[in-house]
């Protein structure tokens, strides 16, 4: 998960990568203790990309402008997130902006170094140059240097970039980062490099060996809407999508396939909700509790194809839940997989209908929602 620029810069700074001397503020009046002169950059600290284009970075030439900028940023949403803090930094003149990053690349079987000679918000216009190397020990500074040579004539700059790339690799492995992106990386008038921004994505799976990552996960969870926060706390995978058809599913690929079918049928799935990480009575009960409580959700599709999960057991759980449940939202079942025959029998006994295919269940759900 992505951490804020400020936290990212702290990590860069403690690993020998130069960053501006900034301060974090929680409210506009904390600006008054700023002693490092003007102009300054006032930057919204949010954990989503595209902040620059969304007006999340403002320049202020004096204290009045700074306070106005801070006020404005604290009141704005960026991709649905309101900044809790702002980063204040000197607005530094620099000769040039470049882009340097390291990221995990599936085809490379590991890491790749990324470079673009023109950084800043425009970098997405042109894909960065990629140096895929896989395992950390396969990073060859001379290999990366050779790639740079084609697009970067300034030898001294090249050497600085290569040295910085090595340090980014060290940092990525030390903190289990999936991506570290410095954009822009400023070339200062003296030729030195300064990280003006930092986007660091931590590997959530490595939280067991990084308290920092666990804490960030906890914080990120708390920022989610209550339904999602509760689902995650209950070991269900949920992403809120805001549609009419609630989805209780198993497996990421199957869940997406069902979402796509719902969308193809002209409706919107309410959520990505994968219960395969907790396929227990408690897990399914929680799923229903959350979806039943959301007024936007007008029908619920239960779509599970069990492998290790035995569907007769799931059917029994569903029967119990349906019996106790107070909500009258209609539920459409399509349960297949291991123990399917027994499951059918269990459901018949419970008075529930198991649709033979996912498509038929979805068509029925769509018809129900469309009925005024």
């Amino acid at each position: 998960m992505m951490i804020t620029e400020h936290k990212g810069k702290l990590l860069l700074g403690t690993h020998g990568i130069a960053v501006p001397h900034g301060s974090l503020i929680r409210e506009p009046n904390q600006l008054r203790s700023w002693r490092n002169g003007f102009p300054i950059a006032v930057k919204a600290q949010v954990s989503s990309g595209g902040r620059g284009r969304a007006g999340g970075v403002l320049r202020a030439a004096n204290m009045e402008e700074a306070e106005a900028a801070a006020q404005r940023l604290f009141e704005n949403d960026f991709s649905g997130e309101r900044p809790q803090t702002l980063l204040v930094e000197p607005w530094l003149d620099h000769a040039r902006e470049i882009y340097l990053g390291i990221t995990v690349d599936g085809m490379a079987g590991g890491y790749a170094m990324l470079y673009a000679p023109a950084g800043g918000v425009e970098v997405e216009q042109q894909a960065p140059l990629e140096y895929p190397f896989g395992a950390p020990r396969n990073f060859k500074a001379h290999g990366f240097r050779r790639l740079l040579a084609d697009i970067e004539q300034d030898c001294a700059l090249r050497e600085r970039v290569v040295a910085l790339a090595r340090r980014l690799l060290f940092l990525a492995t030390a903190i289990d980062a999936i991506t570290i992106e410095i954009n822009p990386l400023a070339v200062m008038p003296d030729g030195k490099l300064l990280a003006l921004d930092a986007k660091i994505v931590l590997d959530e799976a490595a939280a067991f060996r990084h308290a920092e990552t666990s804490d960030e996960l906890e914080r990120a969870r708390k920022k989610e809407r209550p339904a999602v926060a509760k689902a995650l706390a209950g070991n269900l995978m949920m992403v809120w999508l805001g549609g009419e058809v609630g989805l209780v599913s198993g497996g990421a690929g199957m869940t997406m396939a069902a979402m796509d079918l719902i969308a193809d049928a002209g409706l919107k799935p309410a959520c990505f909700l994968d219960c395969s990480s907790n396929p227990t009575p408690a897990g399914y009960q929680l799923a229903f509790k959350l979806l039943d409580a959301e007024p936007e959700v007008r029908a619920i599709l239960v779509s599970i194809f069990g492998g290790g999960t035995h569907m007769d057991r799931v059917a029994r759980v569903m029967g119990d839940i349906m019996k106790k449940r107070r909500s009258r939202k209609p539920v459409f079942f399509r349960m297949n997989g291991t123990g399917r025959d027994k499951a059918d029998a269990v459901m018949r006994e419970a008075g529930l209908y198991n649709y033979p295919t996912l498509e038929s269940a979805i068509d029925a759900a769509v018809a129900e929602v469309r009925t005024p």
Partner: protein
Amino acid sequence: MSVLIDQSARVVIQGIGGNFGRFSARDMVAYGTQVVAGVAPGRNAREVEGVPVFEDMRAACSATGAQAALIYVPAPGALDAVLEALDAGCRVVVYPGDGLPVQDAIDMRAATHRDGAVLIGPNTPGVISPGKAKLGFMPSFCYMPGKLGVISRSGSLSYEVAWRLTTAGIGQSSAIGIGGDPVKGLNAAEAIELLHNDPDTEAMLYLGEIGGNEEYALARYAARADAKPTAALIVGSAAPRGKKMGHAAALVGSQVDTQAAKAEALRKAGVHVANSLRDLVLVAQHAMSQSEKEVLDT
């Protein structure tokens, strides 16, 4: 032999002591897989589900001649388990677990390559060659022998699809779960190459997702003159940008990650691309009949 595993494969289960290990031992034996050993460090079991249990992989492999391993251990110990399997001489290793740090996946992959072995996983149900053997926990009843090779990033989706194929009379040569993580032991390009070289496979079906870049390996393959016919389903068109859809790799970060971009690249390369599960069987049939036609043409 088919790709990766057949009736002659001798399999050891690392972590056979847990519920999943026990279930998997029974389930694989029932399918005809030779499960010859189990390992459960820290337990004093001598036998689980009729399978002899050893203290470590070296003992298990040298006593039984096992050269394929299925590993059920939690993510923090997974790298160590894979390294142990490789050191014990295993040539095919399946690690189904999810939640593995990418860095550990990178190390696993590098170690496997160094030893000239094959790792399937993480985050996969494993591999099955219907009618021969399976190394993993996919539901057997979904599969039947045939000529279509299946590659999937998602476990559940691969069951659903295999069941649809089987119901429609399209048998499978092998179904390889390459897994939903960004860094894989066997990646898409390598799985494609395996099926390309497999005489039992006449066409391929690729089940992909948003996020990552491995679908482009299929596009590159399909553009080759000697490519076998290919079909694909890419799920996640309804997923929003910037949100991880369960799988670690299923996240749209930029335009190339989207379902639309991938489907377009695949179509351009000549892959039969399904719009959704609804026409999945149809595109698989197209690929199969293309292969029959090509056989007739030659």
